[in-house]
């Protein structure tokens, strides 16, 4: 029964350990060069930062060996690389005395993020247990989004009301809400995907969904959008909406959803543009950034970011040789421009490729994982990271209007680090499930008391159409593929 005890043959994760050494070396090299460029010496706290980062990285490595031995071996080093390069950047800005850049704080939040990720890997033994939290997640998501609007708790900063303050402690709840929504959408869609996919009228060749199937999702969507317009946070609203449409498409394979989604977003955007002056301003800044009237005021940040990036050119000015002091929020919202200035196009393309590796690995494991909930959750989490990157970097490089989102793992800010490390923990957890050798008997092995109908193939195909159609009356609580996986899990124990 060796197939049922996969841990015995679990990989030793040597590749991950080696990649972690490379990632940490790059980060340390960055910090070393920063110190020598600015002070001609090793930067203050170099060893503290290096040792803490290394200790955290290898703690996570050991936790994975113990708790998710089959998990992806590239994701953790990739994230550690991004996080330690950002450590060097923020240390550089801190040393240059840039107001707001705080390397020790960044390290603290990084540590907290990695620890929370480790705890999550310990607590969540199986990602499918999250499915039980589908509607809890919905409520948590909505509460998180509404929190900043609560008088006394939320505070408007730089035109957006996205922060909550509890004493000295500030938090950006939307970063966590995206995880809650991903869980909710995954749980809800896996239960209702067939009704959403199959029922409804055809219109202009597109199969439109039935209105009553949309209930809960419309509620979440409407609440989040309404509140986000109230909070004036366009980036987050775009993020939630994209996540929602993306996962809906994943679950139903219906282009109609994308068309409807884009149409609704387009309409919403036009309405928002015509009603809200701050939206109009954002669009003007985007289209007409070099207008002399805007350049000294509203588009100053964007233009300074462009100048910084062009100054970096192909190979960058070098660590410590740029002018982050001219880019407002060079350590958080505009860290991408600041990185581009000192590391150049080469550096930015490398960073984008690392993000791409993380996202594509996440999607790959969504393909690999056997249960529908896992597929949706992994796909959603990977997609939301890609989307966040697109909104942030696209805003800075003028692909889309600039909104206020942060670059995952690189921008200084506790909520962002914490939330994205949790996303990574979930990704790793699902990848472990995806890559773990099947607990089911392989062909020719000794038969187990598992119903033949619940074979892994049937689950992996996911469609299993005829069965689903028959049980449609059961409205999702019936024999969805995941019930079959429950049985598998029972065997696993």
């Amino acid at each position, binding site marked *: 029964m060796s197939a049922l005890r996969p841990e015995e043959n679990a990989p030793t994760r040597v590749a991950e350990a080696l990649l972690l050494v490379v990632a940490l070396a790059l980060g340390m090299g960055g910090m070393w060069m920063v110190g020598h460029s600015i002070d001609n010496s090793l930067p203050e706290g170099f060893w503290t930062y290096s040792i803490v980062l290394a200790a955290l990285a290898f703690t996570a490595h050991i936790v994975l060996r113990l708790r998710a031995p089959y998990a992806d071996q590239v994701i953790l080093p990739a994230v550690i690389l991004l996080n330690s390069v950002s450590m060097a950047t923020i240390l550089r800005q801190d040393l240059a005395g840039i107001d707001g850049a705080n390397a020790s704080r960044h390290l603290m939040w990084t540590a907290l993020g990695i620890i929370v990720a480790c705890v999550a890997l310990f607590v969540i033994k199986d990602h499918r247990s999250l499915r039980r939290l589908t509607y809890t997640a919905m409520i948590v998501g909505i509460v998180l989004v509404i929190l900043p609007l609560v008088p006394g708790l939320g505070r408007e900063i730089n035109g957006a009301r996205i922060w909550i303050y509890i004493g000295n402690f500030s938090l950006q709840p939307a970063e966590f809400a995206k995880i809650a929504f991903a869980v909710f959408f995954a749980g809800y869609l896996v239960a209702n995907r067939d009704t959403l996919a199959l029922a409804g009228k055809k219109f202009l060749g597109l199969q439109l969904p039935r209105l009553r199937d949309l209930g809960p999702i419309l509620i979440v969507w409407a609440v989040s959008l309404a509140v986000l317009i109230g909070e004036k946070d366009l980036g987050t609203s775009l993020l939630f909406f994209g996540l929602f449409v*993306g996962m809906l*498409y*994943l*679950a139903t*394979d219906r282009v109609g959803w994308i068309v409807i989604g884009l149409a609704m977003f387009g309409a919403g955007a036009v309405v928002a543009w015509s009603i809200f002056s701050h939206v109009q301003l954002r669009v003007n800044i985007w289209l007409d950034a*070099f207008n002399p009237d805007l*350049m000294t005021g509203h588009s100053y940040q964007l*233009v300074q970011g*462009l*100048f*910084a*990036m*062009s*100054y*970096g*050119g*192909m190979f960058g*000015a070098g660590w410590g040789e740029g*002018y982050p002091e*001219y880019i407002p929020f060079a350590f958080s919202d505009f860290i991408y421009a600041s990185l*581009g200035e000192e590391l*150049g*196009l080469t550096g*930015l*393309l490398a960073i*984008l490729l690392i*993000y*791409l590796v993380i*996202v*594509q690995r996440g*999607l*790959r494991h*969504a*393909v690999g994982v056997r249960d*529908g909930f896992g*597929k*949706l959750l992994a*796909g959603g989490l*990977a*997609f939301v990271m*890609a*989307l966040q*990157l*697109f909104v942030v*970097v*696209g805003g800075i*490089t*003028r*692909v889309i209007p600039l909104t206020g989102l942060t670059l995952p793992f690189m921008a200084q800010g506790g909520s962002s680090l914490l939330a994205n490390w949790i996303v990574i923990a979930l990704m790793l957890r699902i990848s472990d499930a995806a890559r773990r050798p099947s607990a089911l008997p392989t062909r020719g092995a000794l038969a187990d008391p598992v119903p033949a109908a619940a074979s892994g193939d049937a689950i*992996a195909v*996911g469609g299993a159409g005829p069965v689903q159609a028959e049980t449609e009356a059961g409205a999702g609580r019936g024999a969805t593929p995941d019930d079959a996986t429950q049985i598998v899990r029972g065997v696993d124990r």
Partner: protein
Amino acid sequence: MNATLRRLSTVVMVMFLALMVSTSWIQFVAAGELNDHPRNVRGIYSALARDRGPIVVRGGEAIVTSVPVDDNFKYQRTYSEGDGGAASVYAPVTGYFSVNGTVTGMERYANSYLAGEDDSLWLDRLQNLVTGEEAQGSSVELTIDPKVQKAAWDALGDNIGAAVAIDPKTGAILAMVSKPSYDPNTLAVHNAGEATAASEALINNKPQVNSIGGEERLSPYGPTINRTINAIYPPGSTFKLLTAAAAIEYEGITPDTSIPAEDVYQLPGTTGDGGRVHNYGGQTCSDTGEMPLKDAMRISCNTAFLALANEVGADGMQQMFQDFGFTESIDIPMSTSVGAYPGLSDSATDDSAARIALSGMGQGDLRMTPLQVAMMSAAIANDGDLMEPYLVQSVRDSDLELVSQTKPSRYKSPFSSSTADALTEMMVEVVRDGSGTGAQISGVDVAGKTGTAEDDPRSPTLWFTSFAPADDPQVAVAVVLENEGQSTDESTGGALASPIAAQIMQAAISK
């Protein structure tokens, strides 16, 4: 769901591709444009924080240096060691480097060398990378001869105007003076507020020029404009050199050919008084109404040259103007302004026969820079080969090793050497016994031509262009006095501008 996941993965690829393209666009394709944006302070700050190379004149004297200071910029750009008077002499050449983002003159056009960023300096940069030394800029040695420059500055006195001297055999610019000038040190201060105040005060301080009616008129050019290359004036009678060149080259005329020289010239296509051009003060050029070309040149007879230009015709005149390269900008390395000739530029579209005839004596819509006027003399002096004017003699890296050296190159060949000889012969006569006797230098044959250009309602602009020695030319000059003429009497122009040219030529020859 695997199919949709794979499709989603394609969408993600497209999204990332868009980001990579947009990032590459900013950092590679549009980078140059963004770096040069006037609001972009980065280039200036990085250039200022660097040990920028000095600008040196012939003989090795540094006229611009970077002095270490204890502020954010690390170095203070200093002109003539901070001496405002001496710095003004070279200001049109050096330009200035302002913290506000304005960079002009050599500071701007030789920036890649001064900042040590030029491609030819890659070996130095590689060395710096290995040794960890701070990159130092290269020194730029100019062709400017301080002795000639000083002579030109002193000779111009308090006049508004400009003077430029070229070595006709190489094209090297020996002197380049523009008045009024300014002290670049006041514009290079590191306090942005002071720098802005200083530059605004300067730009709004356009000098008052003379006018016919005596009313107050300002020059279109402020003190920061290099009048030798970026101001255009009607060239007046100095342009008769070009008219004669075209007539000799295309019409087979010689200095001894007798040409019509009436008292009054009726412009082609006109009738009545409006189209009549007289000689200065209604003077008579020749009792017979005809005279040899060389005599018409010597006394600068207007009606003769109007008729001559009409005979050459629009095609020939335009051809010669273009053959001199006057419709093109030259990077010396500063960009020079282009001249205007009827039918060849947007500001002078009318190329009717009357306009062409008027251009024969340098009037009408004709406009040229002093450098271009000097180039006419230079081409004649160099047997019809016009050398490309240049200011950078050589570039040396921080170890004083030669990085590059300008090789003189032929710019244009507007006419043959026999035409050049004929023109030289006539120009020598002008100085020996004509309108330009003021330019005589004892013991040296000088070839020159005066000019007095009407510039209504302003007072006439006075010119003199010449080269010397006539048999072995070492220097070609042009002097312009902006609206300094009291009347249109040719002898006035010759009397005021020609001695200035003589002093410049003397300084250049006696080296």
